[in-house]
C-alpha cells in the first residue's frame, strides 16, 4: 500500500511538471546555464554571464528599452531623447570630437517593488558606485566618458565626452535602489577612504565585491534583501534547479487588456547538459528555451522536429556572432613569408577554395547565412555590395599560380622562396571540443586539399587557445596560419577588430610586445585608410554619413581580406504554440535575448494580445 502511495506521489509530480503553461498562466523557460549572482551586482562586477542579463530583464526595467526592430522606446523614462524633441544635443569640442547631452525624465509612477518611488537619487547612486575609485568595472571606457547632472527628483542629464554614435543606443545610464543598498555603501565608502586605488587594488576589489554580494546571492535574494523595478519580482531561487519570479504589481506599464491576461509567473529551469535539456523540452515540461540553451544541431534534430507540429515553433534568430578564420599576417614569421599569407592574393585564393555555400547548406540547411564582411547583415551598417568570393577552385588555382605555386610530386603545392623549396602546408587552429568547429575544419581541409594545400590541424581546448599567450601572440609566431573562432558583431560597431590604430584614442590595436599584447587585431593587418574611415565613423551622429564611411571601410576590407568570413550564427529557440510576444531579434534588448518586453508575454488562450511576431525576425525550421 505504501509503495503504491509513493508511486502515486511520483506520478503526480511528473504530471505536475507537464501541466505548466497556459493552464495556470505561467511560463517555464529552460536554460543550460544558471546565473551565479543576480540583481544586486548591478555593474556586473562579479559576473557578466549572458543568462544573468537575460533574467534581469524580467526583474529590472531600463529607462529606455531597445526593441526587436533595434529602436529605442521609453520604459521608465517618459520620452526617448532625440534631436527633434530637443532632449539630445551634440556639440563640437574641437579636434573632431563631440560632446553629447541627453535629458531624461523618470516616469512619475515608476516605483520599486516595495512601493518606494524611483528617483534621480537612484540614478545618482548608480553613478556614484560606478565612478568609485578602483571599481573593477568591465567597461571602463564607458565610465571614463560618462557624466551626470541632476536637476530635480525626476529630471537629469547624462553627458558623454567624447561621445560616440552608439552612446544613443538604449539607456545611457542605469539606476540602483539607494534606499536599500545606500546604507551598506556608506560603510564601504568609509572603509575604502584610506585605501589607494593602485596599491590596495586587491583590497578595494574585495570590499566592493562583498558589497554587491549582500544583495546578489541566492540566499540574500531568498531572504528578500533586494527590491525590483521590472514587470516581475523574484520569488525564490533554488540553486541548481530554478528561479521563480512573480508579477510585480508596482510596475507602471500595463499590457493591452490588463496584466491578468498575461503570464503571472515565470520560472527559469536550469539543466546544464543540453542533451538533458532537449529531453525536458521533448517531455513537455518546458514552454520556451532561453538564449543560452539548445545547440543549433539539437534544435534541428529529428527527435524534436518530428514532435514539433502542433506543439512547438522552432525559430532560428539570425544572430550577430561572426564565425571566421583569422590569418597570421606578421611578416617576421618565416611561415607567413613562405606561404605568402601577408599577400592578399593568397588569402583570396584560400577563400575561393572554401566551399562556404556548400557547408552552410550541408550543415545548417542554409539557416545560418554565409558572411561577406565582419558586419552582420542585421546591422544597419552592413554593406551588401562588397566583393564576394564564390566557391571557385579555378580562380583559386590561378591566383596561387600567379604567386609561383606549382603542384609537387605529392600533389601538394610548392614554390621556391629564397632558394628553398617550400610546401604549402598551413596550420589550422580552433577550439577542441567544439563539435561544429571541428566539423567545419575537416570539411574545409578537404576543400583545400583539392587545390593542393595541406592542412595541419592543431586544436586545443578553448582555455588553451584563447589564452593571452597564444591567441594574442601571432607576432611571435605562436600560431602561424589560420585560426577559426567567433566575435560578437556588436550593434555598437567601431571597426576595432581590424584597426591598426584607433585614431580617436591613439591606441594600437595590433597585439605585440610593445603594447603589452592588447588589441583585437590579432592577425596584424594594417590599412591606414580603414583606420581613418572607422575612427571618423564612430564620431558621426548623422546616420547616412556614418553608413557611407562604414560602407567604404567594408569594401576595403573585402578586397584585402584580413580574415576569412565564414558565416553568421543563428540562435535557436523552441517556443510552445500559443505563447505570444516571447520574441528575440538579433539586437532586441541590446544583446538579442527574449524577455526585453517581459510584461507583454502571455498565452493567447488566456487573452494575451499578440503584438510582436517572431516570424518577422527569424527563420523557421522546414
Amino acid at each position, binding site marked *: 500500500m505504501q509503495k503504491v502511495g509513493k508511486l502515486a*506521489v*511520483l*506520478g503526480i*509530480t*511528473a504530471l505536475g511538471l507537464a501541466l505548466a503553461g497556459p493552464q495556470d498562466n505561467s511560463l517555464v523557460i529552460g536554460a543550460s546555464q544558471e546565473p*551565479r*549572482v543576480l540583481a544586486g*551586482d548591478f555593474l556586473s562586477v*562579479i*559576473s*557578466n554571464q549572458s543568462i544573468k542579463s537575460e533574467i534581469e530583464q524580467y526583474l529590472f526595467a531600463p529607462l529606455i528599452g531597445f526593441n526587436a526592430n533595434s529602436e529605442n522606446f521609453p520604459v521608465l523614462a517618459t520620452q526617448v531623447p532625440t534631436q527633434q524633441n530637443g532632449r539630445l544635443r551634440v556639440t563640437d569640442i574641437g579636434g573632431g570630437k563631440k560632446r553629447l547631452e541627453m535629458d531624461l525624465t523618470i516616469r512619475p509612477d515608476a516605483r520599486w517593488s516595495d512601493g518606494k518611488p524611483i528617483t534621480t537619487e537612484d540614478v545618482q547612486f548608480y553613478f556614484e558606485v560606478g565612478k568609485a575609485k*578602483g571599481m*573593477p568595472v*568591465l*567597461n*571602463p*571606457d564607458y565610465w571614463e566618458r560618462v557624466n551626470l547632472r541632476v536637476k530635480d527628483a525626476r529630471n537629469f542629464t547624462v553627458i558623454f565626452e567624447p561621445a560616440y554614435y552608439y552612446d544613443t543606443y538604449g539607456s545611457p545610464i542605469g539606476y540602483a535602489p539607494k534606499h536599500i543598498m545606500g546604507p551598506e555603501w556608506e560603510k564601504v565608502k568609509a572603509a575604502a577612504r584610506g585605501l589607494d*586605488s*593602485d596599491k590596495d*587594488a*586587491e583590497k*578595494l*576589489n*574585495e570590499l566592493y*565585491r562583498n558589497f*554587491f*554580494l549582500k544583495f*546578489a*546571492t541566492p540566499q540574500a535574494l531568498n531572504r528578500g534583501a533586494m527590491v525590483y523595478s521590472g514587470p516581475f519580482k523574484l520569488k525564490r531561487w*533554488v*540553486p*541548481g*534547479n*530554478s528561479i521563480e519570479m512573480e508579477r510585480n504589481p508596482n510596475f507602471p506599464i500595463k499590457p493591452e487588456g490588463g496584466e491578468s491576461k498575461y503570464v503571472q509567473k515565470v520560472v527559469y*529551469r*536550469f*539543466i*546544464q*547538459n543540453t*542533451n*538533458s535539456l532537449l*529531453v*525536458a523540452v521533448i*517531455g513537455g515540461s518546458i514552454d520556451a528555451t532561453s538564449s543560452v540553451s539548445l545547440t543549433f544541431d539539437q534544435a534541428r534534430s529529428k*527527435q524534436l522536429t518530428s514532435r514539433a507540429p502542433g506543439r512547438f515553433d522552432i525559430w532560428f534568430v539570425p544572430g550577430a556572432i561572426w564565425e571566421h578564420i583569422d590569418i597570421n599576417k606578421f611578416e617576421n614569421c618565416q611561415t607567413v613569408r613562405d606561404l605568402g599569407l601577408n599577400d592578399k592574393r593568397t588569402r583570396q585564393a584560400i577563400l575561393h577554395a572554401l566551399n562556404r555555400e556548400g557547408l552552410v547548406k550541408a550543415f545548417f540547411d542554409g539557416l545560418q547565412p554565409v558572411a561577406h564582411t565582419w558586419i552582420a547583415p542585421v546591422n544597419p551598417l552592413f554593406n551588401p555590395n562588397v566583393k564576394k568570393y564564390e566557391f571557385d577552385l579555378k580562380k583559386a588555382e590561378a591566383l596561387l599560380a600567379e604567386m609561383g605555386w606549382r603542384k609537387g610530386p605529392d600533389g601538394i603545392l610548392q614554390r621556391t622562396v629564397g632558394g628553398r623549396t617550400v610546401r604549402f602546408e598551413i596550420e589550422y587552429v580552433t577550439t577542441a571540443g567544439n563539435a561544429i568547429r571541428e566539423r567545419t575544419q575537416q570539411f574545409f581541409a578537404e576543400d583545400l586539399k583539392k587545390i593542393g594545400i595541406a592542412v595541419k590541424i592543431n586544436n586545443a*581546448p578553448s*582555455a*588553451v587557445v*584563447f*589564452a*593571452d*599567450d597564444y591567441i594574442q601572440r601571432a607576432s611571435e609566431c605562436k600560431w602561424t596560419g589560420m585560426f577559426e573562432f567567433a566575435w560578437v558583431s556588436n550593434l555598437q560597431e*567601431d571597426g*576595432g*577588430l581590424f584597426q591598426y590604430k584607433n585614431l580617436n*584614442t591613439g*591606441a594600437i590595436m595590433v597585439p605585440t610586445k610593445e603594447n*603589452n599584447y*592588447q588589441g*583585437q587585431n590579432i592577425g596584424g593587418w594594417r590599412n591606414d585608410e580603414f583606420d581613418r574611415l572607422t575612427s571618423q565613423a564612430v564620431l558621426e551622429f548623422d546616420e547616412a554619413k556614418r553608413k557611407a564611411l562604414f560602407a567604404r571601410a567594408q569594401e576595403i576590407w573585402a578586397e584585402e581580406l584580413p580574415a576569412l568570413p565564414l558565416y553568421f550564427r543563428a540562435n535557436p529557440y523552441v517556443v510552445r504554440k500559443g505563447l505570444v510576444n516571447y520574441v528575440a531579434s538579433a539586437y532586441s534588448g541590446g544583446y538579442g535575448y527574449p524577455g526585453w518586453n517581459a510584461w507583454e508575454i502571455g498565452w493567447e488562450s488566456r487573452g494575451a494580445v499578440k503584438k510582436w511576431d517572431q516570424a518577422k525576425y527569424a527563420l523557421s525550421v522546414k
Partner: protein
Amino acid sequence: MFAYTVRRLLQMIPLLLAASVVIYALLALQPGDPLDELRRQNPRITAEQFEALKRAYGLDQPLHIRYFKWLSRAVQGDLGYSRTYGIPAAEYIFVQRLPKTLLLSGLALTLALVVAIPVGVFSAVRQYSLADYAITFLSFVGFSMPVFFLGILLLYLFAIWLPDHIPGFPRFPTGGVPGVLWEDVRSGAISFWYFLGQWAWHLILPVIALSSLQMAEWTRFMRASLLEVLSQDYIRTARAKGLSERVVLYKHALRNALIPIVTLVGLAIPGVLGGATITETIFSYPGMGRAIFDALVEKDYNVAMAALAFLALMTALFNLLADLAYAVVDPRIRYS
C-alpha cells in the same frame, strides 16, 4: 604502532605542502588567466585599464608571492572568494557542493555495497554454478561499461524511449536537483515525504550509473575474499567440529572475508568526496566533480585550490588510515 602513526602524520605535512605547491603551480601555469575572457568580450578595454583590473585581482604579482599569500591565509582558514560565484570558496565547496556530492556518491557507494556483499557471498557459496557464471559475467560487464556511455544510455532509455513506447511509463527526470527547498518542509509547505520522494526520484538514474562500476568490482572482491577464507584450515576445523554450514559461513568465514572489503571501501572514500565529473556532467548534477571542472575551465583559482587541496588532504589521510587498518586487522604486519 603509535610512533609509526605519528611519524606518518609528520611525513604528511611536507607531502601536503609539496602537493599544494604543485597544485597551485599547475593552476597558475595553466594557459591564460581569469581576465582573458573579459578581454575578448570587451574590445574597447585599453592596456592601462587592463593592468588596473589585473592589480584588482592580484594577478600582477609573481607566482611564488601569490602562493605564499594564499598559504598564509589558508592556514588561518581563509580560502578566499570564488571569482565567479562571489561567495567564499569554502562556503561554495563545503556547504553547497560537498553535501550534494556526499548524497549522490554516498548513495552510490552504499548501493554498491548493499548489492555487492550478498551477491558476492552468494556467488562464492555457489561457486561454479550457473548463477555464479552469470554473476561473474555481469560484474565484468559492469567493469567494462564506460560510465558516460551507460549514463547516456540510461537517460535516453528512461527519459525518452520507454515513456514514448510504453503508455503510462513514468518519465524520469533528465537531471539536476529537484525544485524543493528544505525550508519548505520546515515551514510545512510540503511534506517531508514529498521532499524525500522528489530527491529520490531525481537521484535514481545517476546513482545507478555511478554505482555500477564499484558494484561490479566489489562483487568480485567479495567472492574472491570469501573463497580464500573458506579454504583456510580453521574453516575446515569448524566444519569438522560439526558446526552447521550457516554458523561456519556467517560466524567464522564472512567476518574475516569482510576485512579486505573494508579497506577497499576506505580507499574509495576520497574518490567519493572528489565527486564524479562525468556522471555529474551527464545528469547536470551540481556536485564536487563538476565544481572542480568548472573552476578549472573558468580559472576560478580559489575554488579550484580549496577543493583540490581538500582532496589531497583526504587522499593522504585515507591512505594512512588504510595502512593502519591493515595493521589492526592483520597482526602479522608490523610497522617499525
